[in-house]
């Protein structure tokens, strides 16, 4: 293990100003993430513009902090309010909310925080161990290999999608098409812009993310006029675990960390799958599976650890390959690019301070979460009481200002309205937004590498199958696709997602 790298990282991350932005990020992330109905993706998208005031390293550290804070905030909402901000927190809500109803909100929140911290620490070490060798392997990748890798990533995200596979496929293709809007890189021709000059730069990713996870989600929430979350308890005490509880959570935290670390690198729904599978694993291993769903502390410890480990290891494909496995990572790609850094295997050599500083700040961020959240829980609980009638106009305002301030381009704002309206109906009709976002982000990468590979091979498409790495990746993609369509696997896959309903 390259300790000098990690040492450099800690040195960078522990610089006072970086600690400060990390703290700011974690605080802001928790504050927004705890608001009911705002998940991590929306939180990061809404807070993204704020980070551009800082230099590249500080801004990315802050974003990472926002991401962790948002995740933890989401768990708090799930436990106290039974309103999970995103699907991976939905698993936490199952037992966490029951615990809160039984007056054990304190231990539930403490388990979430400590389990997340442990998982985060382990996963940070894993990132430090696995990222450098993967990055040096990725440096040998040519356009053909990159194309196949993107295809594999997209296919896996379909396999992990929870709904209809053909709809997920269609959403990916729609995302790829939306990604072609704007000036064509090779020829300079503006595509699908209807002559609107403001669209030459393409649709903004933040706008699309805010549209699907902000606007569309608000409209979905307004479907249920009377469903108001009620806080079961505003009093949270005993923010620590008894000896008995510590014994109970030890195994689930360890297993959750392992499951989460492994699944986090998968594109699409890796973190969701991690939370779901670690929960069902604990249920299966438990001597009294009936306790699950009725306030079993293991049912909070396992998915929270898995969730956080996965959040961490999902940085591996981003930092080494430049491939975002998750919408939040896709937002980070946007942030990297705005800061003039192309995420990919070169970052580790060209920007070692940034690379290692970011990794070390993961750990610092996790530590701060524990130090910050447990004492400040009273403040977060008060934020939960903000009524939705005030909250959603605030989200609309934040989204509009945020997207406008990115480029002072009113079209970035119009795109929210249009994509949000269309996205609402597509989500209502059973299409998932995540594959669309991944397709949108990876589209330009896919097209560029496809074109380059074809020029190098003189128009011979067999190049993708004759190069060994590319052929392996495509074979894996085919296997993943076949596996997800096979009836047996399909049933099992559905079972994973519905078992806990």
């Amino acid at each position, binding site marked *: 293990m390259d300790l000098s790298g990690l040492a450099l990282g800690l040195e960078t991350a522990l610089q006072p100003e970086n600690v400060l932005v990390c703290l700011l990020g974690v605080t802001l992330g928790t504050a927004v993430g705890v608001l009911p*109905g705002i998940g991590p*993706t*929306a939180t990061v998208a809404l807070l993204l513009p*704020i980070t551009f005031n800082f230099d590249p390293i500080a801004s990315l550290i802050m974003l990472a902090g926002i991401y962790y804070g948002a995740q933890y905030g989401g768990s708090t909402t799930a436990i106290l309010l039974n309103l*999970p*901000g*995103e*699907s991976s927190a939905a698993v936490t809500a199952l037992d966490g909310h029951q615990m809160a109803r039984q007056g054990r909100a304190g231990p539930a929140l403490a388990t979430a925080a400590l389990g997340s911290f442990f998982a985060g620490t382990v996963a940070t070490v894993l990132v430090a161990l696995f990222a450098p060798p993967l990055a040096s392997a990725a440096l040998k990748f040519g356009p053909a290999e990159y194309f196949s890798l993107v295809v594999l990533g997209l296919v896996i995200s379909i396999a992990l999608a*929870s*709904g*209809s596979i*053909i709809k997920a496929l*269609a959403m990916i*293709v729609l995302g790829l*098409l939306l990604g*072609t809007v704007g000036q*064509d890189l*090779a*020829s300079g*021709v503006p*595509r*699908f812009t209807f002559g609107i000059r403001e669209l030459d730069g393409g649709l903004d990713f933040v706008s699309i993310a805010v549209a699907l996870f902000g606007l569309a*989600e608000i409209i979905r929430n*307004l*479907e*249920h*006029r009377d469903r108001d979350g009620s806080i079961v308890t505003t009093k949270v005490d005993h923010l620590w675990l008894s000896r008995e509880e510590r014994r109970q959570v030890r195994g689930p935290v360890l297993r959750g960390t392992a499951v989460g670390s492994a699944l986090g690198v998968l594109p699409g*729904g890796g973190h*969701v799958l991690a939370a779901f599978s670690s929960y069902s694993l604990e249920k299966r291993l438990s001597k009294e599976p009936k306790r699950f769903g009725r306030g079993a502390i293991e049912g909070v410890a396992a998915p929270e650890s898995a969730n956080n480990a996965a959040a961490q290891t999902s940085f591996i494909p981003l930092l080494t390959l430049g491939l975002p496995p998750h919408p939040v990572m896709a937002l980070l790609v946007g942030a990297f690019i705005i800061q003039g850094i192309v995420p990919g295997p070169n970052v580790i050599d060209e920007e070692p301070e940034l690379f290692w500083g970011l990794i070390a700040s993961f750990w610092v961020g996790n530590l701060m979460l524990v130090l910050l959240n447990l004492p400040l829980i009273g403040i977060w609980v008060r934020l939960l009481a903000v009524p*939705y*009638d*005030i909250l959603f*106009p605030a989200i*609309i*305002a934040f*989204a*509009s*200002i945020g997207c*406008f301030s990115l480029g002072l381009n009113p079209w970035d*704002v*119009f795109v*929210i*309205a249009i994509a*949000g*309206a*269309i996205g*609402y109906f*597509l*989500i209502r*009709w*059973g299409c*998932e937004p*995540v594959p669309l976002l991944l397709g949108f982000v990876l589209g330009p990468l896919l097209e560029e590498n*496809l*074109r380059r590979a*074809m*020029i190098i091979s003189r128009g011979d*498409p067999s190049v993708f199958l004759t190069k060994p790495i590319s052929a392996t990746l495509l074979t894996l993609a085919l296997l993943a696709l076949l596996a997800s369509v096979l009836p047996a696997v399909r049933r099992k896959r559905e079972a994973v*997602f*519905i078992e806990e309903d």
Partner: protein
Amino acid sequence: MSDTHPDTDDVTGGRPDARADICAGAVFVAFGAGFAIGALRYDLGTALNMGPGYLPLLLGATLAVLGLAIAGQGLVRLRVGGDEATEEPDAGPREEPGPVPWVPGALLVAAILVFGFTVRGLGLALALFAATFLAALAGPRTSPIKALVIAAGLTVLCLVIFVLLLQLRLPLLGEWLGG
């Protein structure tokens, strides 16, 4: 804000609504055909040297085909499922999505569009006030007066956060007002 809603039609594993399939399929066909036809206006190039229209044409056609398949799936389900599958989506046994909130949804979309159209002309403060007022009206229990109060409060809050604290260089008064 979830990627996989526990209450989304398909996730619960029950019969997905046939009408949803047909509608989703139609949207995909429309987008696919639109992109494919649009792509024909650009240079297609060859497989060796792809022009700007090559990939969009290919993807657009793919999307249209996928859309047809999804809609076809819905049609088959409509016929096979008989009366059961043609029921209104609201009548199912699972927790169904409520009726489409047309008015609140339109208000929210309008709020964002108004912001986009007026932020340069009227400036941040007024555009924000108009947008938050419209958005607040979408609340099921919000009267116009309450919406005004919410809008005023949020406008001040946002100005403090974005202009005072974050120092974003956004014009407070727009071009139309000589700002």
